[in-house]
């Protein structure tokens, strides 16, 4: 059998694990607690030692009613010395707030128990968020599905005018497309978030990227009577062109739909020393700070009677954010009510990504040339 390394003390291991560990004597009083346990329960070790653990941190049930020690499985475990596991058990901090933990109890060799505490709040929060997401997805999918099915159900009813039948066909087509967009966006977002998307980076100029992104939304801009302005420098950089176009197209589309008729949407691209900044600026109504905080949330759409705005999937900005983060960048939004919105995509430019225009290269003796034999 391998000897333990002499420099490692068992007590150091116990102290360092991110799992709350509390040792109880045969009466149920605390004989030891590691740092994670003290942090979780907000006690100092010196104050906790000697206190009955149940009466200190386990004295009420999750509904707030009294929880006598005699009824606690840990009291039974002290007697029968069999292990216990309690999932999502409510414990109480020193200040009386609750902390939800997965708790185990196992018998100590010399009598008493070892209790472990694993904070379950992150897991519960995740489960809650997933449940909320499923609820939102089902609402978002059911709404167009209901219109689609309703229209198709009615389409061959007797006694209807040609214009009514035509409007039903329009409803069916429109909602089938909306469903398709939603499904695409949901799957795309999940792929990006799961990291199942790899970026295909290539060299591109800011100008050609800006032009293809604005071309993609030119029809929408025309339909809304909004003019598009490109304001870009002559830089080039290294990124996934299709994905970046998707980000800019989403932002431009969003800006157009929030613009007044006759308004202007500007795409501005500038390369700084270590990053590329892309601003999409509109002249719409803007957002209040509390709304701005939520714009990247899945399916968040401001309360609006303006149907142009609610045509989207509610996922465009979330997807844009995920793609930008995949590039190691970030999107931020800034706004003032009544003064429009500005979304800024900031992409980091690594040293070897820097492409210096040909006419400057000889002057600067570009050191990056060596890493880039293509030039």
């Amino acid at each position, binding site marked *: 059998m391998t000897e333990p390394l002499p420099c490692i003390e068992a007590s150091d291991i116990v102290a360092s694990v991110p799992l709350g560990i509390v040792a109880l004597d045969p009466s149920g009083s605390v004989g030891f607690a590691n740092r994670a346990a003290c942090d979780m329960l907000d006690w100092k070790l010196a104050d906790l030692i000697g206190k009955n653990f149940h009466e200190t941190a386990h004295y009420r049930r999750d509904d707030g009613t009294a929880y006598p020690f005699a009824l606690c499985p840990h009291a039974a475990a002290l007697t029968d010395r069999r292990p216990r596991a309690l999932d999502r058990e409510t414990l109480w901090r020193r200040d009386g707030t609750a902390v939800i933990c997965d708790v185990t109890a196992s018998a100590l060799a010399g009598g008493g128990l070892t209790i472990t505490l694993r904070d379950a709040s992150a897991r519960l929060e995740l489960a809650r968020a997933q449940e909320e997401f499923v609820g939102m997805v089902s609402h978002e999918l059911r709404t167009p599905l*209901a219109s689609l099915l*309703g*229209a198709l159900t009615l389409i061959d009813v007797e006694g209807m005018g040609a214009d009514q039948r035509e409007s039903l066909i329009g409803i069916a087509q429109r*909602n089938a497309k909306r469903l398709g967009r939603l499904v695409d966006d949901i799957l795309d977002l999940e792929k990006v978030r799961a990291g199942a998307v790899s970026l295909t980076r290539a060299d591109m100029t800011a100008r050609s990227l800006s032009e293809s992104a604005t071309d993609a939304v030119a029809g929408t801009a025309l339909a809304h009577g909004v003019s598009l302005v490109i304001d870009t420098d002559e830089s080039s950089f290294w990124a996934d062109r299709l994905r970046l176009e998707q980000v800019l197209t989403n932002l431009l589309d969003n800006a157009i739909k929030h613009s007044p008729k006759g308004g202007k949407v500007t795409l501005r691209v500038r390369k700084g020393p270590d990053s590329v900044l892309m601003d999409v600026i509109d002249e719409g109504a803007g957002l209040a700070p509390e709304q701005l905080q939520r714009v990247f949330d899945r399916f968040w759409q401001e309360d*609006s*009677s303006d149907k142009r705005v609610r045509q989207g999937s509610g996922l465009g900005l979330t997807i844009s954010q995920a793609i930008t983060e995949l590039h190691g960048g970030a999107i931020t939004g800034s706004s003032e009510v009544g003064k429009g919105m500005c979304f800024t995509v900031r992409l980091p430019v690594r040293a070897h990504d820097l492409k210096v225009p040909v006419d400057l290269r000889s002057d600067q003796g570009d050191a990056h040339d060596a890493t880039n034999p293509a030039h």
Partner: protein
Amino acid sequence: MRRILLIDDEPDIRAIARIAIEVVAGWEWTEADSGLAGLEVARATTPDAVLIDVMMPGMDGIATASAFRADSALRELPLILLTAKSMDDRHEWLVNGILPKPFDPMTLGNDIARILGWDT
């Protein structure tokens, strides 16, 4: 001849329900795209029943139904909530009935008549 008012923010749902009421059930139709507009339309047209979608931005269906009940001229109107969520059962006390969403446009008239005890 019955007259139905639907309050729903989704224009496509209104268009479908309109055909279900006018063509399939053979009744009269009025509509509104928000709770506030719905109260106005109800005052002007005195419908025999008001269908109210629960999920609306701003003033939702519950707030709209409460506003009908709080208005001395409108409080007697039969109200039916349209909802996709079974948990909205807890608002049953506020309205005359609840219709699950999506509704079947072929039976919408019959479903309303059944809930309100109308002869068909």
